[in-house]
């Protein structure tokens, strides 16, 4: 069982808390992404798990085994680094064989060579075995790094932004390959990224970090549809979420009022009664309203046609900007035009204005 369990793990650097009492459980064979901006604690979490830094408090387990204070070589992990960290003085074959040579008892030369060529074939780098890292391309180096991790059949795979040095096309292809790889080998994978689309497309669950604290752990869809706070709502999704500050009115049939704009919310079950709220709505939940009395007036400032989608920047009378995402085959707008827009009430999120926490 290669579950990974963090219990109350903290890491401080002087006055800065890099990670604040993390509790996180990763299931056997699960693909979990640690997502967050730089300095959020996601890399600290990975380095703690790898044993590259030591925790100030708390415990880390892999399966039943506590590894909190074990050196990295005793943890039985494999890691792919952002910069690949290949051994420059070794050929591709020697790079991939290197983890096997640390095994005790050390496998025979034939067994090592067999394993290396098997892994190299799987990754399509079988013809590069005699080359040195500086003689192959970035994408190929990436595959060698993956091969070096795969060859030892580890309990847990750690991937530290492995795709961020690749160009856009290659990144999308590697993303697919990674997912396929996970399906084949079925290992537990912990994947660190600051790219929300990577996290969303690859993972079984996403753990969102900010300011050294775990914000939310959930499957991608739930993260996207039910963000626990304004940070998660804004960070996840490739376009910014629209936020409006305003006041809640009414008991059963609730209204949201922000300046002159009024939005009917219908019946909402709120966890905390709060008057001052922030309303969050994703660009795709903004639509053009047919009947004017239902919507808010907005002026089109700019449009971006991005192939399959049309992204429209709008300005409300209050001056607030709203992003809208729509289908260019259904909607066509010109800059300066005034339209009436509405928010899909099912896709509206309400957050406490002070704490930023979701109250719906």
């Amino acid at each position, binding site marked *: 069982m290669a579950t990974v369990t963090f219990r109350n793990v903290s890491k401080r650097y002087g006055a800065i808390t890099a990670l604040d009492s993390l509790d996180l459980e990763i299931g056997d064979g699960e693909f979990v992404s640690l997502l967050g901006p730089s300095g959020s604690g996601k890399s600290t979490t990975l380095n703690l798990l790898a044993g590259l830094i030591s925790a100030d408090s708390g415990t880390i387990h892999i399966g039943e085994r506590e590894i909190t204070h074990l050196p*990295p070589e005793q943890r039985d992990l494999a890691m792919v680094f952002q910069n690949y960290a290949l051994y420059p003085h070794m050929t591709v074959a020697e790079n991939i064989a290197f983890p096997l040579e640390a095994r005790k008892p050390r496998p025979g030369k034939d067994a090592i060579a067999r394993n290396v060529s098997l892994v190299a074939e799987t990754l399509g780098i079988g013809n590069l075995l005699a080359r040195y890292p500086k003689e192959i391309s970035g994408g190929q180096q990436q595959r060698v790094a993956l091969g070096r991790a795969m060859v030892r059949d580890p309990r847990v795979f750690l991937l530290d932004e492995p795709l961020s040095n690749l160009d856009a096309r290659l990144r999308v292809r590697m993303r697919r390959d990674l997912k396929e790889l996970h399906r084949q080998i079925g290992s537990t994978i912990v994947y660190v990224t600051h790219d929300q689309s990577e996290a969303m497309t690859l993972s079984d669950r996403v753990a969102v970090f900010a300011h050294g604290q775990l914000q939310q752990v959930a499957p991608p869809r739930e993260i996207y549809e039910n963000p626990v706070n304004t940070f998660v709502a804004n960070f996840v999704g490739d376009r910014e979420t629209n936020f409006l500050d305003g006041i809640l009115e009414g008991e059963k049939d609730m209204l949201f009022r922000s300046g002159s704009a009024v939005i009917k919310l219908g019946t909402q079950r709120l966890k905390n009664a709060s008057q001052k709220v922030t309303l969050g709505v994703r660009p795709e939940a903004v639509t053009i309203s047919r009947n004017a009395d239902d919507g808010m007036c907005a002026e089109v400032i700019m449009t971006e046609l991005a192939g399959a989608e049309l992204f429209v920047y709008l300005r409300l009378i209050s001056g607030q900007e709203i992003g809208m995402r729509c289908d260019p085959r259904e909607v066509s707008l010109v800059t300066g035009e005034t339209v009436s827009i509405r928010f899909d009430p099912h896709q509206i999120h309400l957050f406490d204005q002070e704490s930023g926490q979701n109250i719906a």
Partner: protein
Amino acid sequence: MNRNPYMRLALRRAALRTVVNTVIVLFALAPIAWGVVSSLKPANQILEVPPRFIPQDVTLEHYERVIGDKGLLFLGNSALVSAITIVFALTIGSIAAYAIARYEFSGRRILMIFTIGVMSIPIASLLIPTFTLLSVVGLINTHVGLILLYTAYQLPIVIWMLYGYFLSLPIEVEQAARIDGHTALGTLRRVVLPLSKPALVAAALFVLVFSWNDFVVAVTMTSSESVRTFPVAVYFYLGFYGREWGPLLASAVISIIPITAIFIILQRYFISGLTGGGVKG
């Protein structure tokens, strides 16, 4: 004539630089050239007035004399002491430098400052206490005594050179080796040291130059012929009744040859770029 004023200025600078460099080179090499040439002259022509740069008659008699006078034994002693000193200094030095470069422990900074600080103590000032120490422990007049002293003298500079180089290596490569299952020492041996070849070679040359050329420590700490190193043997040609210029110059030339040869052979290791391609970004 080139009319471009910038070009003219650049040309004038280059010419000036060449002249200055030539003077420096001549100044530095003249004594060595004179020594080499004179060592090939018969004894009666060495101090001829007026001096002749090109020898009238060429002879190898001084070299034969030096080699015949147990010269090979002294050369062997020097080589043995230097080689073992290099092995000791690099082994201990690389482990120490790696620990200071990559491990966090209290007193790390002070240790490094101390290491650099002891380099400023002149060896001559330590001769009498070390002589006393060595005689008490019974290592006076032995190869082991010389090797230990040379290692001690050269360790700080070796640590300092390797420390700087280790810091410049990408740490992810070492972390990868650890995660791949190799111990700290295994990582040092199989990843860090192979990547540090230029620094190791440079440090080894430093140690070699010192231990091969050392005169003052060797002459103080040894007395018998069986452990005498070559520089001390050279000194013995400065006889009591007069200098024997021929063998003296020949032995001086012999002592220069191995170091010059090693420098030429190892030149290519100074070229950096050995770490290229390992990490990206």
